[in-house]
């Protein structure tokens, strides 16, 4: 039980640090935890997602992905596992790609996405961080 409490604390610390980092940046970022829940996206991401994090709250990442309807740049629907975020989560390695999403404001956007796993100093997996930006 003591170990469980310590692990929860450590997980929280990594995600808290990630959130603090993201909240101070002008680049859109979202963070999901190891349970595949969207736990934060920053203000710049709100402009692409079309909704604030305060409105969305913590939701399962699959729900978030379904809301944004990701597609390949040729218009083919993408499964979560095919997106950089899905790869970073499933395979635990960084991934990058271009895809299209439809924001909650109804706008379709082509974005570049880099996702990487968040491992703590103890090599425990805590979730993923996804950096994305609209392509010109």
């Amino acid at each position: 039980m003591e170990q469980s409490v310590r692990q929860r604390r450590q997980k929280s610390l990594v995600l808290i640090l990630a959130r603090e980092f993201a909240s101070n940046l002008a680049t859109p970022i979202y963070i999901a935890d190891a349970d595949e829940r969207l736990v934060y996206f920053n203000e710049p991401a709100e402009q692409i997602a079309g909704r604030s994090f305060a409105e969305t709250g913590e939701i399962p990442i699959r729900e978030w992905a379904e809301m944004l309807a990701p597609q390949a740049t040729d218009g083919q629907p993408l499964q979560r596992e095919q997106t950089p975020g899905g790869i970073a989560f499933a395979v635990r390695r960084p991934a990058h790609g271009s895809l299209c999403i439809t924001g909650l404001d109804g706008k379709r956007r082509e974005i570049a996405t880099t996702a990487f796993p968040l491992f703590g100093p103890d090599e425990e997996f805590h979730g993923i961080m996804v950096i994305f930006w609209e392509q010109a």
Partner: protein
Amino acid sequence: MATNLSIPISVLDPDGNLVFFNRSAEAMHGMTFEEAGELSATEWPTLFAPRASDGTPIPLEELPVGVALFERRPVHKTIQFTGADGVLREISVTAFPLMGREQELFGAVAIFWHL
């Protein structure tokens, strides 16, 4: 934040000086940050000799961190560089500017991984 992540990360100041890289980046750079210390915007490109996949040298302003700093936008590229250990590495790099809420530039971050 960078210190606590297992993915290689480098941090540059607004002038392009390399002011930090984390332990994961040390293996890629072929040296520890303690050994390297801060490297100026002229020193580190000379040391690591970044180049395109065809071997063409890439000037600082065209490197991902250069684009992030000078054009103030995120970018992703695949490049090659030679570590201080003499090993040529091909890496994927995502770089983005560190900008505050008032759009002031604090530097740039490069996140990279070996291909």
